[in-house]
C-alpha cells in the first residue's frame, strides 16, 4: 500500500457516515444507498491520483458520490428530472456539512438514547432502520395504522434528537 492509498483509506473510514449521508439524501433509500456507497468507495480509490492532498477531502469525495448517484439515475426510468435532481443533490451536500466529530459524538449518544425508548418503539425503529421495512409492511408488522407510521417515526426521531442534543451538551460541559 502506498502512502496515497493508505491516506484515502483513512479518509474514507473517517468520513464514511457523511459520504453515505450524501448518497442516501439523494436516493432516499438505504439499500440502494449502500450499493452506491460501495461504488463510490471504488471510484474514490481509483481516482486517488487526482486528489490534491492540500485540499479538503470531503468536498472531493462528495463530488464523486454525486457523480455515482447521477450515473445511477441515468439508468432509472423514474429518476428525478434534472432540476429536481440538482435540488436533491444540493440538499445532500447540506447534510454532509459540519465536522466528522459531530457525527461521532452523536452516534455514541444515539445508542444510549435508543435504549431509553419503550421496547415497542425500539422494535419499530429496528424494523424501519435495521431491516429497512417501510410503509404498509411496517404498519402491518407493528400493528399501527399505515397513515400514522410516518408521524410516529417523526415523533420518535424528534425524541431521539432532543435526547442526543442533551447528552452531547452534558458531555461537552463535563469536559470543560
Amino acid at each position, binding site marked *: *500500500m502506498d502512502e496515497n*492509498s493508505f491516506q484515502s*483509506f483513512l479518509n474514507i*473510514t473517517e468520513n*464514511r*457516515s457523511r459520504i*453515505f*449521508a450524501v448518497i*442516501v*439524501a439523494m436516493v*432516499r*433509500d*438505504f439499500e440502494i444507498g*449502500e*450499493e452506491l*456507497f*460501495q461504488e463510490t*468507495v*471504488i471510484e474514490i*480509490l481509483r481516482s486517488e491520483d487526482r486528489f490534491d492532498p492540500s485540499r479538503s477531502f470531503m468536498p472531493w469525495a462528495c463530488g464523486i458520490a454525486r457523480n455515482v448517484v447521477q450515473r445511477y439515475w441515468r*439508468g*432509472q426510468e423514474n429518476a*428525478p*428530472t434534472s432540476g*429536481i435532481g440538482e*435540488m*436533491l443533490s*444540493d*440538499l445532500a451536500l*447540506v*447534510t454532509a*456539512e*459540519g465536522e466528522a466529530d*459531530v*457525527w461521532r459524538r*452523536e*452516534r455514541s449518544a*444515539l*445508542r444510549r438514547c*435508543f435504549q431509553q425508548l419503550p421496547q415497542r418503539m425500539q422494535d419499530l*425503529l*429496528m424494523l*424501519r*432502520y*435495521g*431491516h*429497512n421495512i*417501510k*410503509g*404498509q*409492511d411496517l404498519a*402491518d*408488522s407493528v400493528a399501527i395504522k399505515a397513515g400514522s407510521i*410516518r408521524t410516529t*417515526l*417523526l415523533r420518535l*426521531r424528534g425524541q*431521539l*434528537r432532543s435526547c442526543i*442534543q442533551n447528552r452531547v451538551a452534558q458531555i461537552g460541559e463535563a469536559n470543560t
Partner: protein
Amino acid sequence: MISEEEYNELMAAYLEGQLSEDQVGGLHALVHSSDELRQRFQADTRTHVLLRETLVEQAELQLLQDSVAAPRPIQSLQRSSVLKISAAILLVAAGIGLLFWQSPSAETIGVCVNVSGSSNLSIERETEISRLMPETMLRTGDTIQCGADVRAMLRLTDGSILSMESDSAVTLVSSRPEIRLDRGEVMFEIAKRNEGALPFRVQTVESTVDVMGTVFGLADDGHTKLEVYEGKVTLTRHRDNATVEVGSQQTASTATEQLSVQELSQASRRIIQLVPDDDATLDQGLTEAKQPRLKVEGDRRIVYLKFVIPKINGLQSAKLRLTQDIDAGSGTLRFFIGEHTDWSEDSLRRQNAPGRTREVARYVGVVGRGQSVEVDIVEAIKSAGPVTLIVTLDETDENDIWFSSREGNNPPLLILTQ
C-alpha cells in the same frame, strides 16, 4: 412563515422517500431560507442516517449471536451496511495490492434452508470441513458438498434458491452473488435482479452463466450442460469466448464443437412454478386478504391458498414452498386439501371457508427467520383445475409463524416437476 407542522410534514415525507417534485422545491427553498432551518435539516438527516448505521449494525450482531446460540438463517434481502461497507473498502484495498491487509471476515451470503437424505453434507470454510445443518448461515468463500444420497437447498440473501442434487458441490464466491459449480447438478431459481444490478453469475470450469432472474439447471461432468426452464440465460464458453443466449425450454452444452441452443426434448424435466391465485388468512374468522403476509397459529389463524393447476402429463412432484417473514416460530405445520375451491380473497369468510379433508403433508420443527418450508403435496394434485390448500399450525400462545403472501417479497410457490 413556515409552520412547525409544515416543516415536519415535508421532512417526514423526504426521509421516507415520499416527497413529490413540488415538495422537493419547497423543502430546498426552506432549508436555504435561514441558518436555523439549515441546521435543523442537518440534524434531522444526521439522526436518520445514524439510526440506519447503528441499527443495521445491531440487527447484524443479533443475527450473529443467534447463529452462535442456535444457528438461524439470515433474513432474506437484508444486508448489513457495515459488512458491505467494510467489504467494499477492503476488497478494493486488496485489488490495489494491499497484500499485508488481511481479508475481513467473509460476508454472509445465505442460509441452508433444507436438507434431505442421509449421507454427508459438508461445508468447507477456511480449510475446516464440518457437517452442514439446516439453518447454518453461509458466507462467501464457503464450499458446500453434497454426498451420494443427500440434497440441499440454499437460499441466498438476494432471494435466489439453489437446489443441490446428490454428488454436487458449489463454492459461494462473492456476494454479487457469484457461484462456482464445482461438480454435479444444481437447479438455480434466480430472484429477479433490480434494474442496473450486475447479473447473477455462475462459473463452471468451462463456462460462465449470467442471468437476471430465471429458473435453470446446470450440470458439470467435465462439460457444462445448461437447461433453462423459464426466462433467459447467457452462456459464455471460456476456451473460445463463444456466447449464446439460452431461452425458456432450451438447452445448450459446452461439449459440442459449435456452441448452440437446442429445444429441450419432451423427455427432459419441465418445471412449472405457480403463485397462488388467491391466498388469505382467516384470523378468528375474519379475513386478512391482500396483505403481504400469511399467518398461522392454532385454531386462531388458518391460511388458505388456491392454485390453478394447468394440464400436466406425468407429474413427478409438487412442492409447496412457504417462506417465513417477520415472525418466526415452531410447531407442527399441517397441509390439508380443502373441500372446495368456491372462494376468493374477497369472499372468504368463516361461513364459506372450505373445510379440511385429507392431510397431505406435515412439517415439524422450528421455522427460523427467512427460512423456507418445502413440502411435497403431489397427493393433492389429481387433475387440472383449481385446488385449495389449507395450512395450520398446532401451536398457540403467540407461537405463530408468518409467511410471505403472494403480495409479499417471497410469495408461496407451488413447484410442479413433470
